C-alpha cells in the first residue's frame, strides 16, 4: 500500500533561554532523527510521554514548523518547501478547547473556516449541515461555542478539520480531558473518518484508546523512536507475556523489594500509587507459588494473572516512574 506520510531522520532543535540577568542560551533537541511511514487509510498512533516529541512531529507534518534536518513528506510533497500544495489536502486538531472562536456559533465557526479553505459558498450549507450531524452538534448549531462542553468543542474541532475533506488528518490528543462517554463518541467519529479512507495520525496518552483505534503504533521517548509495530507486534516485543497483579494493603517497601528479588521476576510496578502491584515474569505459575508461600494470606488479598496490554509495552519501552 502507498505511503502517504514518509518521515526520514527527522530532527528538530529549539533554543531556550535560561536565567534573568545572566541569560544563557541552551539547545533542546525535541526530535533526534526519527523515521517512519504511514500507509494510506491507516490509523497510526504516536505514543510517548510529555515532551517526547509527538507534538513537534505533528507540527512539522502539518507545515507549522520547520525541521532542523531530515525530511517529512506528505503525499510525496515536502512539508518544508511544498507547504502551499500540502495545506489544502490535510487538516489537524490539537487537543484542548482552543482553536475555535468561542463568541461565534458552531455554524458560524464552520462557515468562517469553510471560507478560509476556499470552499464554494453554494456547497457550504450542505457540507456544514452534514458535518454538524456527523459530530452530533446539528441541534445546537446556533449556540455560541462558549456555552459548549469540552466534548462538544472537541467534536466541533473535528468537524472543522473535516471541512476540506482532507486526505490526511492529524489528531493531537483529541480526547484529552473528556469524560468516558465523550471520549467514546470521539473514538467512534475517528473510526468513521478512517473508514471513509482518510489517513489518521493520532497522538494520545490513553493506551486503551490507542489499542482500540490504531492499526500501527510508534513509541517515542526523548525524541527517539523506540518501537514501531501493530499492537500485537508491540506486545510480542516484550519478554513477559503475562503479569501478576497482586492486591495488598499491607505491602511495604521491604516487601516490594522481596517481590523483586524473587526468582524469575523481571519487574515490579506499583499501579498508579494504588494497593495493586504488578509483577512481571515469564514464569507466572512459579512466581505465583512463590508469592503465596512467601507472603501468605495475611498480606495478600488476591492475585490476578493478566495478559500484557499496550500500557505494559509502553512502560517497558518508554520507562515508568513507578517502577520499584
Amino acid at each position, binding site marked *: 500500500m502507498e505511503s502517504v506520510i514518509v518521515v526520514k531522520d527527522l530532527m528538530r532543535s529549539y533554543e531556550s533561554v535560561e536565567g534573568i540577568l545572566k541569560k544563557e542560551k541552551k539547545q533542546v533537541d525535541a526530535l533526534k532523527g526519527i523515521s517512519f511511514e504511514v500507509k494510506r487509510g491507516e490509523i497510526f498512533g504516536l505514543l510517548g510521554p510529555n515532551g517526547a516529541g509527538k507534538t513537534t512531529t505533528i507540527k512539522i507534518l502539518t507545515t507549522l514548523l520547520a525541521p532542523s534536518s531530515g525530511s517529512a513528506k506528505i503525499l510525496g510533497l515536502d512539508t518544508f518547501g511544498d507547504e502551499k500544495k500540502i495545506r489544502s489536502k490535510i487538516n489537524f486538531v490539537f487537543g484542548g478547547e482552543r482553536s475555535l472562536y468561542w463568541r461565534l456559533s458552531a455554524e458560524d465557526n464552520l462557515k468562517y473556516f469553510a471560507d478560509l*479553505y476556499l470552499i464554494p459558498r453554494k456547497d457550504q450549507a450542505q457540507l456544514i449541515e452534514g458535518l454538524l450531524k456527523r459530530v452530533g452538534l446539528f441541534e445546537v448549531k446556533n449556540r455560541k461555542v462558549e456555552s459548549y462542553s469540552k466534548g462538544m468543542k472537541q467534536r466541533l474541532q473535528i468537524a472543522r478539520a473535516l471541512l476540506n475533506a482532507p486526505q490526511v488528518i492529524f489528531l493531537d490528543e483529541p480526547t484529552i480531558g473528556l469524560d468516558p462517554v465523550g471520549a467514546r463518541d470521539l473514538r467512534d467519529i475517528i473510526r468513521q473518518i478512517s473508514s471513509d479512507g482518510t489517513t489518521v495520525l493520532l497522538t494520545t496518552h490513553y493506551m486503551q484508546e490507542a489499542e482500540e483505534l490504531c492499526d500501527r503504533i510508534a513509541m517515542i521517548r526523548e525524541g527517539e523512536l523506540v518501537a514501531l509495530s501493530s499492537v500485537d507486534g508491540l506486545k510480542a516485543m516484550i519478554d513477559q507475556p503475562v503479569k501478576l497483579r497482586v492486591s495488598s494493603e499491607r505491602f511495604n517497601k521491604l516487601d516490594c523489594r522481596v517481590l523483586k528479588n524473587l526468582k524469575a521476576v523481571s519487574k515490579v510496578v506499583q499501579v498508579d500509587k494504588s494497593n495493586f502491584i504488578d509483577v512481571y515474569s515469564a514464569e507466572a505459575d512459579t512466581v505465583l507459588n512463590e508469592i503465596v508461600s512467601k507472603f501468605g494470606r495475611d498480606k495478600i488479598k488476591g492475585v490476578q494473572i493478566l495478559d500484557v496490554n499496550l500500557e505494559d509495552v509502553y512502560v517497558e519501552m518508554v520507562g515508568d516512574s513507578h517502577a520499584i
Partner: protein
Amino acid sequence: MSSCKNQFIMSIGRATFQFCVLAQPIVFGFILGMMYLEKSDQAFTAYVLIGSGIMCFWSSICFSSASDINRERFYGTLENLFVAPSGFEMIVLGKILGNTIWGVFSMIVSACFVLLFFDKNMVVENVPLLVFGLLAMILSFIAIAFMLAGLFTLSRSARVLMNVMEHPINILCGIVFPLEILPRLVLPISYILSPTWAAKVIRLSIYGGTASDIQTSVFGLLTITLVYCIIAARAFKQIDYKARIDASLGVY
C-alpha cells in the same frame, strides 16, 4: 471578506473594544472640546472634530488590528489561519478591514458628539482635500496595522509595543496639537510616521494652504504609506518561512 465580517462581529463582542468605539469617542471629544473651546473655529475643527476622530480611529487600530495576532495566538486559532489556503496575509488584511469599519464608526460617533455638544462653527476651506486626507489617513493606518500584524506574528515580545504606542502616536503626529510645539529633536520621528502627514493634509484642508504645501504633504503621505506597504508585504513573505523556523506560532 469572510475574515472582515468575522472580525467585525468578533471585535465588538469584546468589552474593551466596545469602550474603544462607543465610549472613548465621547470622552476624547469632550476633553479636546473643553481644551479648544476658546480657540478659533479652524483650530476647533482640526483638533476637536477631526483630531478626536483620528485618536479614536488609531485606538481601534492599535488595540485591535495590531493585537489581533496575539489574540488569535491565545485562542489557538493562529495556526489554523496560518495554514489556511486562502492565504495568511489576506486573512490578516480582512481582519484589519473589519476593524477599520469600526474605526470609521468611532470617528463618526466622535464627530456627532462634538457637533451636538459644542456650539461651535466648523470651518473647512477645501472639502475635497479633507475627504482625500481622511481617506489617505485611513489607508495609512491600514498599512501600519498590516505592518504591525506581521511583526506580532514573528515575535511575541512585540506585543509590548502595542501598549506603549497609542498615545505617543497621537502626540508625535500632531493629531491633537500643532507639531511646532514639540521639541525639534523628536520631529524626525514624527516625519517617518504617516499619520503626521495625514494630519498635515487635513489641517491644510481646514486652514487652507498653498498648492506647494498641499503637494508636499500629499506626496509625503503617499510615499510613507507606500513604504509601509512594501515593508508589510516583505514581512509577510518572510513570515511563512521565519515563523516556522522560530516556532513562534503556537506559543502564547
